[in-house]
């Protein structure tokens, strides 16, 4: 198999070697699951598609709001916002961009099959005022509306109709349509070639309205799931940028005079979710009841986690243990609540015994092996931690293309997930991860944690205008879910990108890679 692998690498090297000069070769651990900007609310996919599609309100290099396809926006009543659209913008197929496309895109993002509902849940109606003006009416006052719009990408009404892609297809049901493979956005790059799982090529959009800061004309994106293969691709010069750099290889790349590593804090929080809804866990040896419904069991698992060993040994120090589902850089972070339950194996055993499981129990755990930094190893370490209190984990390690559809169907008892609030605000965390699941809420609350008090607070946070009061409500909700042990927070991982010395780029803390800011020497 090694010769075959070498042959593939050689083949890639040859095909790379014949490409034109200002071509950027990027290798990341995973691929974007679909080219449809509304089909999956996942950082990797939305970050990649952010090069092709654009939102009304964009983010700059520091993640602050900046005009995107809308040039100005203001609130004309407590619940109505008016957006003026950018003049002279065209889609990649040449058709002009206007308010019809905005109305259509919101309808699409709010409709069946869309995974973008956490961002659009507060919106009541999107109206066309004239060709370059739209109004968005919210059900209740929604002070952070512009913040949540930065991930809602605009599509062409005409193109979607012509391609029979008026609706996003639900990845969870395994359906795909034309928009899964083709794209027609307004962004700085357009999609030239798409081979899911192996190669995606973007070329510069010469008609883009913005000022080009980077010099990359063509981007060849290759997912390379295997850590050593990805590092080998960078070391041998086949690719210009890799993300992530495996933690064990950071020193090796730093030591290479032709290469460099860019590290930075990431807003992503890695945590463990537990099925708290089913009356009987899938695949467990406990019949007739669900151990995770008992707070003592959840707390026992929490206390059995040796987070310090995971930080030093598995993450090699490149992680910040956390007690909250959000990072310090996210609005609403509560430093006073950021205290983990103590690491206490004996206490955990006692809790399990009290809950009626003195000898523990068996439960399967779903874990991606190509999504987060050292995800596979974290899960193995957790399985070892929990074995000490008698909880036997049957570990199911899967590629994210299998893992995500499965856990999104809630076909899981115990899972590892990471979350970056795309709005950089605690409301998105609470709404997506902790609110009782419904069509628009709790879309990533895959264990169906439910606390009516938390739900009520989330509703109030959404419409609260006073920042101090809003912060108080956020902290109250965070405290409630923490007391419930709604999830087992682990840590915030750190970003580590490896690249050739001649590459300059911007590394936003949300782990997206905008190609428009990349320069190659």
């Amino acid at each position: 198999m090694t010769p075959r692998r070498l042959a593939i690498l050689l083949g890639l090297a040859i095909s790379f070697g014949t490409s034109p000069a200002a071509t950027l070769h990027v290798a990341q651990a995973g691929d974007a699951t679909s080219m449809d900007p509304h089909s999956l609310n996942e950082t990797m996919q939305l970050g990649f598609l952010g090069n092709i599609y654009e939102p009304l309100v964009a983010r700059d290099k520091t993640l602050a709001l900046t005009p995107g396809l809308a040039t100005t926006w203001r609130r004309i009543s407590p619940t109505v916002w008016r957006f003026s659209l950018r003049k002279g913008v065209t889609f990649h197929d040449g058709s002009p961009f206007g308010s019809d496309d905005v109305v259509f895109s919101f309808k699409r993002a709010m409709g069946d099959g869309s995974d973008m509902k956490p961002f659009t849940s507060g919106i009541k109606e999107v109206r066309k005022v004239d060709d370059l003006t739209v109004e968005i009416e919210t059900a209740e006052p929604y002070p952070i509306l512009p913040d949540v719009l930065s991930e809602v990408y605009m599509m062409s009404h005409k193109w979607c109709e012509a391609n029979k892609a008026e609706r996003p297809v639900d990845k969870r049901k395994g359906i795909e349509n034309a928009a899964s493979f083709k794209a027609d956005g307004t962004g700085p790059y357009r999609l030239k070639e798409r081979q899911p799982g192996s190669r995606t090529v973007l070329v510069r959009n010469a008609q883009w309205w913005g000022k080009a800061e980077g010099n990359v004309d063509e981007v060849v994106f290759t997912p390379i799931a295997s850590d050593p293969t990805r590092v080998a691709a960078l070391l041998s010069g086949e690719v210009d940028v890799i993300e992530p750099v495996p933690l064990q290889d950071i020193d090796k790349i730093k030591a290479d005079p032709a290469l460099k590593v860019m590290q930075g804090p990431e807003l992503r929080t890695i945590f463990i979710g537990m099925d708290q809804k089913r009356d009987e866990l899938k695949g467990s040896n406990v019949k007739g009841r669900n151990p995770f419904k008992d707070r003592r069991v959840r707390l026992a698992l929490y206390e059995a986690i040796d987070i310090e060993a995971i930080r030093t040994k598995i993450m090699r120090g490149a992680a910040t243990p956390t007690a909250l589902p959000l990072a310090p850089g996210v609005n609403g972070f509560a430093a006073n609540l950021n205290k983990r339950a103590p690491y206490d194996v004996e206490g955990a055993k006692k809790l399990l015994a009290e809950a009626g499981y003195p000898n523990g129990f068996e439960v399967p755990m779903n874990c991606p092996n190509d999504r987060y930094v050292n995800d596979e190893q974290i899960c193995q370490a957790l399985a070892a931690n929990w074995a000490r209190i008698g909880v036997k984990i049957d570990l199911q390690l899967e590629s994210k293309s299998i893992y995500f559809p499965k856990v999104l169907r809630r076909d899981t008892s115990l899972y590892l997930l990471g979350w970056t609030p795309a709005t950089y605000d605690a409301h998105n965390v609470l709404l997506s991860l902790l609110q009782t699941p419904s069509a628009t809420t709790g879309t990533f609350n895959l264990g169906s944690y439910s606390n009516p008090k938390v739900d009520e607070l989330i509703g109030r946070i959404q419409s609260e205008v006073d920042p101090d009061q809003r912060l108080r409500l956020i902290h109250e909700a965070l405290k409630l879910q923490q007391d419930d042990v709604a999830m087992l927070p682990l840590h915030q991982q750190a970003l580590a990108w490896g690249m050739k010395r001649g590459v300059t780029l911007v590394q936003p803390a949300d782990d997206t890679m905008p190609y428009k800011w990349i320069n190659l020497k």
Partner: protein
Amino acid sequence: MAQPSSTPSVVPGRARLLAAFRRFADGDVMHDFLHSPVALGAALVALGCLVVACFAGTFAPHDPFDLATLDLDNARLPPAWQAGGSGHFPIGTDAQGRDLLSAIMFGTRISLVVGVGSVVLSLLIGVGAGLVSGFVGGRLDAFIMRVCDVMLSFPAILIALLVDGVGHVLFPDATGATPFLVLILAISLTGWVQYARTVRGLTLVEREREYVQAARVTGVGPLRIMGSHVLPNVLGPVMVLATIQVGQSIVVEATLSYLGVGVPPTSPSLGTLIRLGNAYLFSGEWWIAVFPGCMLIAIALSVNLLGDWLRDALNPRLR
């Protein structure tokens, strides 16, 4: 041979066995074996691997499958003779703090069980299909041989990947022995073809021999002829094939596990150990991949050398 009268039912059997053993020990094959340093060495290594695998539970200093005993503080310790190594872990530990020596011992057991298991299964399927095909002939023969041709037109690893994938879909939440059974099935489905073709060819020759004709004439049923008369006469080459295939199956299992579709990483086989260790080659933690790799080479090489020798020894024309 004398017939002792006291326990007529046991001793003749034992005596016959003893006689058979003596015939074997005095025979050409044994003589050849004892005078072939390669065969002797290979047999010793293979026997060593077998002993290690069988008694892993007794010999291994730690139990790598008992997750409760793993300690991340011991993660990635180098071999004992290197700086930072510990006497507790003679050849170091992996990323989870698992003792590599114990992991290799248990991994060898898994690799051997899967290897031997899949050879036994493919032997059963292949010999059965080959016997029937060669003895019955006609349309059934044509059908079985076309199935073989189709199987041969795919690379073995591809079929194994396919079966393994289907197995994972059918038993998505498989626990315990199921993944291993799927793996054994996946490997044997690619292995049986060779037996079937070999046995069919030999059966075609044997079925025209006089002793088969005689058996037919005296009214012996076709199943009995196949089982009692033809089978013993075609077994020699099959044994050679089987020995070589044990080595191949172990490598296929390692490949599948290396690709991440074999046995789960919480109970690693040699291939899984190499896959997990592969990530640390660049960072200088070479022992995690290299030692399981050496073990894999030792098993596969010794079994293959034994098979080669057996082929030469059983084939008078090559001597």
